């Protein structure tokens, strides 16, 4: 080969990206901290420029996470036109998606359980998008099979081998297995438990759960405490319960309340005509397609870029000072919906006016790391019996495993590239600070820990690109006492010019809860 030709080739290779990466070069890394800079600027009270323009609108929804988009979707779907949605610093919130190498992948939440009968609002949404077919209020509706998680769904690496499903079984002693069986039966029974008011004790959305004090008292102790008291002492069982809580609440059984812990297991009673109980709905880029479809219904003309800096009641309406890039503008609305986390809302508005006491009512938030690895080919699996599943988890650690972004693709052969998305919930007390200060190497070490333990060098050498999404305030932790916060109750009840919609009103962050508060805000506006 001529030297010139070689140089040209080398140049072309470096232009076309990472194919020619040498073994000792680290793969291209992107670190995202959604909303962090804007949020911290807001906290530090940086001065904003004078508003250059004004816009008048009947309803302004501030924030475009699931709660804000759901409120907007409901308004648009009911024919309500005079509103806008201000995207905020974190568009799509925890339901955001990404794409690496053209492969869609999640930057946050990645699945939705089959909605129970009480989650009528979610069923309606899914029906509107053609994902749920037939009568949305039937006990067993049919779901789009492309979206129902494909087999094999889950596997767990435990005692040196993979097993099917995440509930530990392989290599456990009889006592542990018996406890796990008893626990499963107990949670099954609690699905049907009702309070004196006739309502089910654990319902999604949690606002529809029984208000009977006997059940709500469970919110005052930790889940770990309750498990011990009930004789659930087996290590494997406690690890599993801890994993489930970390996966949904960002904090383990020591931190979350017993009510929330049980709610995880007992509230998801959805069924599908064409899927097994306990199935989930998932898209390659997590829940992002739902946010895109809600945005499409709302209409691009009603989605404004920018974030709210200050919300001020003025006469019969509300003024919102907004910032888009370097430009400030003012929204004048009859009503606003604060569809943002409460720790942010506390900086744009004096929540004390509503009887909200930050010290007493503000939930502690969990920190998350979502890591997407674009891989050249699939790493070699040790087990033929238990091939790569959608969700893959290792027993015993404090990691949350990884999902495969191309799992739902209908392909005869595996695609040439794929994305593995690994999840980590950081320890609530130290996690946020660690995320803020960790060097890239440390972040990468944590991000790929499970995958390296599973595949070793074969994983490393396939990495083409890495995208890390750091969420310092990812979600509220449903800690003991979370159901008894008077300030939260006050914000839920607000029905004048300023309304609130966010999963923080539930105290736990899942799609159904966020959507529920969006639904409530829309309902107040429409009636």
């Amino acid at each position: 080969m001529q030297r010139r030709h070689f140089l040209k080739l080398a140049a072309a290779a470096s232009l076309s990206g990472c194919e020619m990466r040498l073994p000792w070069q680290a793969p291209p890394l992107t670190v995202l901290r959604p909303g962090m800079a804007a949020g911290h600027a807001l906290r530090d009270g940086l001065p904003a420029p004078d508003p250059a323009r004004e816009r008048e609108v009947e309803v302004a929804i501030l924030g475009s996470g699931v709660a804000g988009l759901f409120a907007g979707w409901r308004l648009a779907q009911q024919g309500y036109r005079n509103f806008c949605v201000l995207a905020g610093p974190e568009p799509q919130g925890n339901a955001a998606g990404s794409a690496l190498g053209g492969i869609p992948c999640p930057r946050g939440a990645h699945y939705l359980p089959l909605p129970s009968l009480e989650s009528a609002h979610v069923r309606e949404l899914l029906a509107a998008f053609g994902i749920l077919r037939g009568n949305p209020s039937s006990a067993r509706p049919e779901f789009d099979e492309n979206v129902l998680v494909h087999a094999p769904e889950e596997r767990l690496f435990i005692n040196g081998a993979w097993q099917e499903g995440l509930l530990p079984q392989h290599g456990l002693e009889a006592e542990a297995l018996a406890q796990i069986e008893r626990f499963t039966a107990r949670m099954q029974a609690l699905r049907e438990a009702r309070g004196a008011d006739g309502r089910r004790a654990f319902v999604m959305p949690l606002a529809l759960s029984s208000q009977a004090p006997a059940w709500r008292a469970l919110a005052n102790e930790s889940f770990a405490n309750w498990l011990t008291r009930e004789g659930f002492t087996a290590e494997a069982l406690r690890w599993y319960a801890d994993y489930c809580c970390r996966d949904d609440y960002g904090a383990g059984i020591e931190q979350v309340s017993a009510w929330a812990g049980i709610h995880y297991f007992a509230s998801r009673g959805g069924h599908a005509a064409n899927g097994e109980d306990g199935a989930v709905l998932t898209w390659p880029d997590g829940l992002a397609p739902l946010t895109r479809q809600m945005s499409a219904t709302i209409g691009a003309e009603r989605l404004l870029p920018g974030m709210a800096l200050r919300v001020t009641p003025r006469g019969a309406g509300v003024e919102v000072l907004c910032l888009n890039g370097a430009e400030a503008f003012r929204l004048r609305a009859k009503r606003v919906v604060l569809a943002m986390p409460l720790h942010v809302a506390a900086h744009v508005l004096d929540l004390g006016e509503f009887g909200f006491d930050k010290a007493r009512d503000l939930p502690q938030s969990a920190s998350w790391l979502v890591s997407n690895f674009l891989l050249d080919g699939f790493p070699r699996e040790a087990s033929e019996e238990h091939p790569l599943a959608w969700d893959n988890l290792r027993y015993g650690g404090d990691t949350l495993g990884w999902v495969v972004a191309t799992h739902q693709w209908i392909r005869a052969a595996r695609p040439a590239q794929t994305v593995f998305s690994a999840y980590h919930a950081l320890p609530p007390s130290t996690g946020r600070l660690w995320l803020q200060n960790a060097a890239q190497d440390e972040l990468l070490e944590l991000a790929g820990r499970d995958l390296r333990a599973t595949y070793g060098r074969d994983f490393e050498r396939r990495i083409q690109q890495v995208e890390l999404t750091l969420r310092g305030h990812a979600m509220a932790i449903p800690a003991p006492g979370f159901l008894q916060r008077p300030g939260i109750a006050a914000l839920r009840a607000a029905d004048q010019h300023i309304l609130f919609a966010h999963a923080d009103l539930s105290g736990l962050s899942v799609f159904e809860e966020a959507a529920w508060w969006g639904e409530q805000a829309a309902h107040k506006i429409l009636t």
Partner: protein
Amino acid sequence: MPHRLLILSVFIVASCGLAYELVAAALASYLLGDSVLQFSSIIGTYLFAMGVGSHLSKYIKDEDLLARFIDIELLVGLIGGVSATLLFVIFAWVAAPFRVVLYALVFALGVLVGMEIPLVMRVLNARKAEFAEIVSRVLTFDYLGALVVSLLFPIVLAPQLGLARTAFLFGIANAGVALVAAQAFRAELRQATALRLRASIVLLALIAGFVGAEAVTRWSERGIYGDQIVHAQTTPYQRLIVTQWKDDLRLYINGNLQFSSRDEHRYHEALVHPALSALAGARRVLVLGGGDGLAVRELLKYPGLEAITLVDLDPAMTQLFSTSATLTALNQHSLTNPRVQVINADAGQWLETAPGSYDAIIIDLPDPSSYGLGKLYSEPFYRLVSRHLSDTGLLVVQSTSPYFAPHAFWCVVTTLDEAGFHTFPYQAHVPSFGVWGFVLADRHGRYQPPKAYSVPLRWLDAEQTASMFRFPADMPRPEVEPNRLNNQALVRYFEEDWRRVIR
């Protein structure tokens, strides 16, 4: 004269040494893949072993120099000569210790070859030649021999002779050096006759090996595939093997028989004609899978067809069946016919984006043996296919054996029912497969099997057709679930059914 002879032997010995190294590395690359790893680890092992050999050479006493040199030549010739064939046989018949034997052989050869040059130098030194002259001459011819072989091996030897016979050829050269040396230095050797006899026996054995190597190789290939391999290729998607025994051509994908040229006409006539002969006005046909072009060959018998689109995953497969003389003779150059468009894509991905609708769609995919393939037999996939089928069009799906895998076969039928089709399952006897199953499907349930065929056929006729659509009493329809993406029931049925059949 003996002086020159020794220098010449250095040239031959050096060639042989490099040749064994190349043969071992090439064979390992061919059988194990990852050629960079194989070449570098084998060359490394070999050079290290040569160092060990050079070290050991000092333990040979001066008076034994020539005799040991001849012994070593014989041993190198013998081990190097049989190395390739031995490795091939081990790979074909005993799977496990291949790598152990490979590296042991390479190491042994390296040690022996490493002793050669020091010995020759000492022999020359003992004959009072000037040391500087010895080093210069010996090393010059050593490196020259390496150059010659490194060029001959890839250009002439490997392609013309193959690895097994190349190894024997160099073994013969080594033994030849031994024999000539034993002859030339007989005056200086104590047991010259015995040495000559030994050298002659080894030489004869190696010549016999050279002649018989092909038979042994063929025999070991038969150990893997039953017949002689005429084409072997590993693609990113699969391993393609074409074998031939007399006039029987067979294609294996990942070790599974895809067709035998003896009876593939039965399979492909059954796959294509019950549908196509019932579609008088068909213009456009889509084939998913079927990269061997044999279904297309049958389709091309219909002059009314204007466009045939074939979507097959593996470009290597369609390339092979478009260019190989024996294979294009079998598919009658169907893939290069102007009416045929070949697209290399994953059928699932292609259907998601491709426009257009077809009068007939023929799905000739491999059996549902993996979750990936299972997705291409699922209800959502058939709904996707349905969007590309004209209102009166027909769909045919190869559906594994209704006799050996009844649950799998009827699961395909049930899945098509579930996807909104009216189904017409049928079965045909293909000797090399046994009873094989197909499902024909349409939208309105109007399909009638043809009463006559207007195109030339070797096997199918009206009577066969009528009997194909009747399922005898020993093939009842079991109760099965449809194949959903979230349960992959078909892959499970398929595995369970075949596990019951294969011992």
